[in-house]
């Protein structure tokens, strides 16, 4: 029982940075902007967070530094993409590579050093409960933050007027413009907010989940996975978080399986979550294929079950919007 609880606690912790990055990208893409720089941003933010924490001696300042890096990268993207109308994809890619190398280069002096970490919070009243206690009774603040933000943005996106405007901008910017919604401003704002969350994810790695800095840090690839999870999650905060936890579960399972099958190469278990994610993505999107339609035609029950998993991207995702240019 305790073993199960500790495993779940481990999943929540390992999944926290992924959840934050996924939420950030979900918001950005809901506004119609693709931020491909996730992977590099996470690393640079992780490095900066750790370095700031080490120099200032305060991990909270480190977290602020991480968020700063996320916002800074996103502002470059916002400038080139929504403001100047150039390719978001190209600049995102370049930022990924640039940020990653910059992180390794600038982070060299801080590599393999012992630095401050975020404290573990223990919640009175909950920590002593059986089973629940070990799961969420004492965790890093980033875990609580990731859980809280998941529900917050879910509510924000689907129950508030601002959330409705955000979705409108990502779906039909022209119609949104005609209704007096400030399309460009919203796109820029949500790119920056998304960037802040991605930066936070970097800090969550280097200050809590995988403390310290080095090459590799352990956060490599997390940004790409988060990008995939956004699609898997159908641009929905709850489903996105679920996808992130699923990935974390696979990673944790990999560690256990490795102990069970010592004969198999360790790499197999480290890599296994990635193809499993690809398979999941395929499963989620197969409703559009012809053979699936045939199958669903024969077994209508199957269709009803899978239709809930059907996802469609925001209609204007990645498209440029210029109010002065007529369609």
């Amino acid at each position: 029982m305790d073993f199960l609880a500790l495993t779940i606690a481990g999943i929540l912790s390992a999944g926290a940075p992924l959840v934050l990055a996924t939420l950030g990208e979900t918001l950005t893409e809901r506004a119609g902007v693709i931020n491909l720089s996730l992977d590099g941003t996470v690393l640079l933010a992780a490095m900066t967070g750790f370095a700031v924490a080490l120099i200032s001696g305060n991990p909270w300042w480190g977290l602020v530094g991480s968020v700063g890096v996320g916002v800074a990268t996103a502002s470059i993207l916002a400038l080139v993409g929504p403001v100047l109308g150039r390719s978001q994809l190209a600049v995102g890619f370049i930022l990924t590579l640039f940020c990653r190398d910059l992180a390794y280069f600038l982070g060299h002096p801080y590599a393999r050093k012992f630095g401050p970490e975020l404290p573990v919070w223990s919640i009175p009243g909950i920590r002593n409960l059986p089973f629940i206690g070990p799961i969420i009774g004492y965790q890093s603040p980033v875990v609580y933050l990731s859980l809280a933000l998941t529900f917050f943005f879910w509510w924000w996106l689907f129950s508030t007027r601002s959330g409705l405007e955000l979705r409108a901008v990502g779906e039909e910017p022209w119609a949104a413009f005609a209704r007096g919604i400030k399309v460009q401003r919203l796109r820029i704002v949500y790119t920056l907010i998304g960037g802040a969350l991605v930066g936070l994810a970097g800090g969550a790695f280097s200050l809590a989940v995988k403390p310290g800095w080095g090459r590799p840090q352990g956060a490599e690839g997390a940004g790409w996975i988060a990008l995939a999870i956004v699609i898997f999650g159908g641009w929905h905060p709850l489903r996105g978080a679920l996808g992130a936890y699923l990935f974390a579960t696979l990673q944790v399972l990999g560690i256990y399986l490795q102990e069970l099958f010592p004969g198999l190469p360790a790499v197999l278990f480290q890599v296994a979550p990635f193809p499993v994610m690809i398979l999941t993505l395929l499963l989620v999107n197969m409703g559009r294929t012809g053979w699936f339609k045939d199958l669903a035609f024969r077994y209508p029950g199957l269709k009803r079950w899978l239709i809930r998993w059907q996802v469609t991207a925001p209609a204007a995702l990645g498209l440029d919007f210029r109010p002065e240019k007529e369609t």
Partner: protein
Amino acid sequence: MHVEFQDIHKYYGRVRANEGIDLTLEPGRIYGLLGENGAGKSTLMRMLAGHIEPTRGRILFDGKPSRGFNPSRALALGVGMLYQDPLDFPALKVWENFRLGGTKRDRRDTLSRLQKLADRFHFRLSPEEKVGELTVGERQQLELLRLLDLGAKVLILDEPTTGISVKQKEMLFTTMRQLARDKGRTIVFVTHKLAEVEELCQEVIVLRRGKLTAKLPAPFRPDELIKLMFGAKQEEPEEDQHRHNLVEENFIQLEQVQLLGEKYTLRDVSLGIRPGEILGLAGLEGNGQELLLRGLAGLVRVMKGRLIFDGEEFQGRPYLEFRRSGIHFLPAARLEHGLFPDLSLNEHFRLAFPPHNGGRHKLSPEEGMKAFSIQAKLSTSARALSGGNQQRLLLALIPRQIRLLLLEHPTRGLDHGSGQQVWSHLRERCRQSTALVFSSADLDEIKDNSHRVLIFYNRRLIADRPTFSISVEEMGRLMAGEGRAV
């Protein structure tokens, strides 16, 4: 509200969309804005709605000029526009669409306000449904309610009757009359259909080639309006033989075909098509015509039944095989699905008729342009063409020898003259024994041009009749689910 256009000019590069327009609109009146395609109707109205700015001149609202004009500013002043293609959010729910850009209210207030407005006009809209699932007519109704909720004093309706049923149209007209008479709203009704202007409007404004040619009060004289719209007198449509030569055998046979679309299934379609025959598909949008056209084109899966083409079973075969066998489909979304918006006309011709093709289908771009009277340069991109030119280009790109031509709304958005031109070309093709299946929202077009009429209702093919045996009125009744199908 009193609106005054003062010497409005709008240029796009060298194209003069509007030139020197002076016009006054009074409250409580319904105006018809008439003109052929490309006459500058939409441009003028989009300036009024704040979507584009005039190159020169100004618009006064109750005597005051507007500065830094944009759509939300226009709405605040009380100008609301209902666009030809609804400018809404298909992925969002009805009530969310209603809420966006509207008065600040919570969910419950939004819902009750929407319900109240809908009840007033006897519209039936379910608030939780996604707008993408609605018909064009319902989407218009929703937009209309939204504009009224915002207190629009000037309502612009850009071709609102395309894609809605006769019943919906009558409802819309009643609503318009109510609004003008009881609430003192100014209504501008943009159209190229004379009959609708006669039915609804108290005054007509005619544009021709960007210039204002007339502003006349009712009653109108149709022949005079036509002269004002087109300049010269239009030739009458040529009479075509409605009875088709029945000797020839069916070359296409559908046997209890079931077609699976994105949103619904069309069941039990059985019919045959003879060479040179013209079939008109009538029905309200979303009742099966789209699916049948796409099924014949090989774009939709045949779930059951047999689709026989020249004695061979074609169901389940890939689209390219359909195409190779001489089946050609022109979708309603001409620019999006039929052409490459950013490629030039020359490039379109080269793609359609590659020079190495043994010279058999060879058609030089210049010849094509001339034969189909496409009014543009070869270097123009398809995006820049008018609707009529786009359709003529599409027709020009079809290979000479094809067996079956499928057309979705072949003359939608085209003016009378262009429409006649398209049809005289199509009839010529049929004389060379190409069979033709087309859908149209215009029942007169079906009556005038087809040998057989297929009528769809409730997502089923309910009637297959020779055109000479059915009147337009009867078609309308069957489409609306009234009367007995045969």
